């Protein structure tokens, strides 16, 4: 399946992919927040969320801001 992760297309040869597996596989840190198709996903739900072909993920972490 093809997933857009932070704007880049990534291929996963998996029948089923959970959000927590994707984050682990791509080595994202713990202090991130995730939006799936522009909707916020609670950290406690990562293991319950199925990722599907065409999904768009935004994975954000703290940066400088004004």
């Amino acid at each position, binding site marked *: 399946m093809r997933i857009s992760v932070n704007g880049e297309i990534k291929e996963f040869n998996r029948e089923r992919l959970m959000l927590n597996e994707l984050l682990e596989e791509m*080595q994202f840190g713990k*202090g991130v927040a995730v939006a799936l198709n522009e909707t916020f996903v609670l*950290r406690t739900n990562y293991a319950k969320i199925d990722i599907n072909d065409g999904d768009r993920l935004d994975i954000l972490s703290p940066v400088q801001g004004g």
Partner: protein
Amino acid sequence: MINSKSNKKWKIEGKEFDSRLMIGSALYPSPEIMKNAIIASGSQIVTVALRRQSAGEQGANPFWEIIKELGVTVLPNTAGCHTAKEAITTAMMAREVFQTDWIKLEVIGNQYNLQPDPFALVEATKVLIDEGFRVLPYMTDDLVLAQRLADIGCTTLMPWGSPIGSGRGLMNPYNLKVIRKQFPNLNLIVDAGIGKPSDAVEAMELGFDGVLLNSAVALAQEPVMMGEAFKYAVHSGRLSYEAGAMQKRDMASPSTPTVGTPFWHQFA
């Protein structure tokens, strides 16, 4: 030491602070200068943001470690959002990452001057207040917009002085003055456009409760020194407001006593 009224704590969104200066964490020449400028400014509220993390960046986040070490209250923003939905999602992500229900809500309506979109701002504010956020809306200096935001539960309003990063100071002091007059019980912060400490003094002398700025310190030739300059400016402006400035006059009025002035004689 004489205690002025201004030495009392300032309360905003349920928390107490000594400083009325809120400062941004962006655009500094280095993380070290950022840290020292924040310390020199005396600010206890620092704005931060969220951006996409690169895959593989599992290690610590040096920027975030510095901010945590400073022990300040963080105010996450929704910078870069152009719709209410984007801003709401970003706010929820920020609440989880930064562990705070405070949000500096920005919904940009125009790319040229980064003017906030008042309609989307009200829409997002309503949703976020219902979700339990303490919304500090970045807004234009529009009185009716201020009323709408107050009506839906905002207790802090943050009208712009002038466009973000422009350093143009207060474009329309009259509008700010009217908002102050109409909302005596809300916390009012001038957010954006401050260029010099004298702009901050002006905002505080209008009776604003605080000032939020970033570029004015970060882009100064000496950011740490400018941070300190703003510390004094905000404090000075507040003291001036509380002390109550004299009325302007058209004619001069001597300050030295006129009784007993020498060289005047009846024979002259």
